[in-house]
Every structure is written in C-alpha cells, then in structure tokens.
C-alpha cells in the first residue's frame, strides 16, 4: 500500500504571547517574556512557584453562547486557534463537514478551572444540586477536541490524545498517520492547556517548578542554563492544519512543511524521571521513519522545560545522536511550558524559523549548565537555512514523541 504524504498547510495559536501566531512571533523577535508573578497565588499554602505565563482570554463572545456554554478557557483557546488555522489554510467550507476532515486535540486534562470549580461547589456540603450540566462538558478530558469539532461541524475522526506535555505532538502524529493511511484528507491537530494553581501545584509538589525567581519572573524558566530551577506553567492552544499533500498541491495551498517522520514511545523506566536512552530511542526512530540521517537535520526544537533532570537527559540524548553539529534551542524561556499545547505552539514557531531561515535563541540561557554541554546551543539569533527540523516532546509518564518536518 502506497502511503500518502502529509503537509502542514495552516497554523493558529493563542499563547501567553498573544492571540495569534503573528503576535507570538513578534514578541519572540522582541525577546519578550510572558512570565509573570501571579496575583493571589500566595494564598495557596505550600505552593512554592508563584510565576506563570497566562494567556489572554479575549473575544470569546464571538462564539455564540449555545456553543460557548460547554467551553472552558482551553476550549475557547482551541476554537480560536482552530479558526485561525482554517482561515490560514484557505480550505473550502465544504471539506469541514464532509467527513473527510477530522479534529485531534490533546491536553493533559480537562479544563482545570472547571474541575476546580466543580469540586469547590460539590465538596463543602457534599451537594451536587448546585452543579450545572455544563461543568461536566468543560471537565472532560476531550473537552477541547469535542468543543472544536461541535462548533465547526466536523464530522470526521474526533480524538483527544492525553499524554501531558506530549499531547499535542501525539495529536499531530496521530493525524499524520490517519492521513497517510488515507482515512482522512485533512485534520486539525494540536493541543491545549489551561493555567491554574492546581496545575502548577501538581508539578510544584514534586519540586519540578521554578521557585527562585518569584520576584524576577522574566528570568525564568532557564532551559539548559546553569541556574535553571524548574519549569513555569503556561497556557493556550496551538493548532496545525494537516492535509494530504496531493490535495494541498492541487488547490495551490501555502505549504509550511511536509511531515516526513514521527515516533512516540514509552520509556518503561520511571513515572516522572526523564530517560536519555528512551529519548534517544524516540528521536532515532523518528529519524529512521523519515529515512534520514542525523546529519540531515538542520535544527532541533528541544522540549527543554528547564527542570534540572529533564534538560540534562535531553541534552545527553541529543549529544548522543547529533553531537554538537545541529543547532538546538528551546522556546520555553519566552512563554513557559504550555504543557498539552506546547508541542503544537512550539512547532508553529519552529515552522516560522524554517520559513525565515533564522533560529530563535533559547531565552534565559546565559551560561550553559555543565550537564547540558556538548550540543550546539543557540544563544543568539542564528541565520541558518532549515530544510529539516526535529521537534521533541517528553512527558510525565515516560512518554516521548518526536516529529520530523521538511521544508516543501
């Protein structure tokens, strides 16, 4: 069976650095940090990390109430990013509800704000009578995918990948496979996440968050840096429009890149600790599936969240495969770790780097940690033709994902 080829022909995002892709890229160009000290977070006893990268919720009333009622923040972000991606792709309306177009959007969990509110309403008196029906739809693990599909009238495959920080990349990988197999012609793929103290708190209690920069928020997170002290949670949605290549060429679509390889795998080692060997295996398999050698890769967009152990393991995995030949940068210093959305938002920025022939440096990487040396860290903007890029995502649960894209 001849597998189809898959391209990315539309992008959209709502991120801590703006309501669309253009504002996100402009902010990165201007070396802006979206990290802030969060007002009111001091009241959470035991929460050490008081910084985060919030996204702005805006223009939500453009979504009619009947559709919006089941949406928490992350679903609204997802709808907005999806609409941008569709508009950017320029596809005809008729494809959307043809059954040949799908929607795969992942997230770590359902809407964190709604989950928290539901418990706050229910638990004090063990009373369910004040719970609205819509809370349930906002709390579901597939709330973003479901809401986007309902709002847009998508009748093809609707899926929600849930693999924490690898959710978006798994969504894109799943979409890639479905189109390759000929099961769908096009799919909106990506991820979403919602910021909340319970989200930051879940990382905080295992000491994975940044807590030394509460009074100097723009200085954190610091991927690969000697003074890194953990991740900073963000929120938003990133959506890419995947399309069967022949269809995209036929309609003269603007093509960002072709997806030529993908792999996802478990580490089978530890529930939270990253494993360099599992990461290396994941990236190697992705390169193998793309039928390319490490020397063919021009840029690696690292997962690098700025945790002590995660960055060290990722640097080791990259060093083992690529040595110090291939430029590497992480985008989390600019807008934090958008968790389930990160794979898609960071891929979108990476595609922009590919278009421009410019690599954005790792923000806040001032002095490379000894444990992260031996790879080609980009610390200043670098002019470089990018023909092939690799996007990494590594998640709690030992779940790894890597995607390989080639310039069309």
């Amino acid at each position, binding site marked *: 069976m001849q597998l189809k080829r898959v391209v990315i022909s539309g992008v959209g995002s709502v991120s801590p650095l703006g309501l669309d892709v253009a504002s996100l890229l402009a902010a990165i160009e201007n070396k802006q940090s979206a990290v802030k000290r969060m007002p009111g977070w001091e009241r959470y006893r035991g929460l050490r990390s008081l910084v985060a990268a919030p996204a702005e919720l805006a223009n939500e009333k453009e979504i009619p*109430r009947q559709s919006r*009622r089941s949406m928490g923040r992350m679903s609204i972000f997802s709808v907005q990013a999806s609409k941008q991606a569709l508009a950017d792709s320029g596809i005809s309306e008729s494809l959307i509800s043809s059954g040949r177009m799908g929607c795969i959007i992942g997230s770590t969990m359902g809407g964190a704000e709604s989950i928290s509110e539901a418990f706050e309403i229910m638990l004090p008196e063990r009373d369910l*009578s*004040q719970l*609205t029906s819509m809370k349930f739809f906002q709390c579901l693990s597939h709330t973003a995918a479901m809401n986007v599909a309902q709002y847009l009238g998508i009748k093809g495959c609707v899926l929600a990948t849930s693999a924490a920080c690898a959710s978006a990349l798994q969504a894109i990988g799943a979409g890639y496979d479905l189109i390759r197999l000929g099961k769908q012609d096009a799919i909106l793929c990506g991820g979403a996440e919602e910021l909340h103290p319970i989200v930051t708190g879940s990382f905080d209690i295992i000491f994975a968050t940044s807590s030394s920069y509460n009074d100097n928020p723009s200085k954190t997170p610091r991927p690969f840096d000697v003074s890194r002290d953990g991740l900073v949670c963000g929120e938003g949605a990133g959506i890419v429009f995947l399309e069967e290549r022949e269809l995209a060429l036929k309609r003269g679509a603007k093509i960002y890149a072709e997806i030529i390889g993908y792999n996802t795998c478990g580490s089978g080692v530890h529930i939270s600790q990253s494993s360099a060997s599992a990461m290396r295996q994941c990236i190697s398999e992705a390169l193998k599936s793309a039928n390319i050698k490490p020397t063919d890769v021009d840029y690696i967009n690292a997962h690098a969240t700025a945790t002590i152990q995660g960055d060290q393991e990722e640097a080791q995995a990259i060093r083992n495969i690529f040595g110090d030949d291939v430029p590497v940068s992480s985008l989390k210093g600019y807008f934090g770790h958008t968790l389930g959305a990160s794979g898609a938002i960071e891929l979108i920025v990476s595609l922009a780097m590919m278009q421009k022939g410019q690599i954005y440096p790792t923000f806040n990487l001032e002095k490379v940690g000894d444990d992260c040396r031996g790879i080609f860290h980009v610390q200043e903007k670098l002019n470089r033709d990018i023909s092939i890029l690799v996007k990494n995502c590594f998640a709690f649960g030992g779940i790894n994902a890597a995607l390989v894209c080639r310039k069309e």
Partner: protein
Amino acid sequence: MAQKEIIKMTNEVFEEAFEIESQKLTPEANIFNDLGLDSLDVVDLVVALQKKFGVQIRNDERVRNIRTLGDIYGFIDALGEENKLSLPREN
C-alpha cells in the same frame, strides 16, 4: 415576595446566565422556541434559579411543565405561597 421582584430576579437569571437581551423577556416568551434554551440549559436554569431564590427545585415535578417565562414567574410565586423561598441571595 412581590410579583414584580420575582419577575426582575428571574429576568436577571436569563440575562446573566443565558445572555438574553432584556427586551425578549416577556411573560409569553417560550423558553425553548423564543429564547433558544434546550434541555441542558434547563438543568442549568434550575441551578441558577435555586441560587437566585435560595430554593431547592431540582426534583420538583413542576419544572417539567415550564414552557414560558410566565410559567416560571408563576412557579416561583407558588413556591413563595408554600413558604419554600428563603431570602433572595445577593448573587
């Protein structure tokens, strides 16, 4: 509770929870056909009315017969007659 107050507070529920313009809120307005609510909205309408009037009506069979805004005014009025309304809450 005065009928006028019941109408005012009920209409506030429709404006706040369902974003319906005040000019549409007439006693004869059908909550499904004219105001666009569906069965899930009715679940949330019950929650909002409970909160507004400090009353428990989730299991009250009369909710099933509500069709118009006027039906709701009458239902709340009847609850008042039955001394089931507590003091209205701020929100």
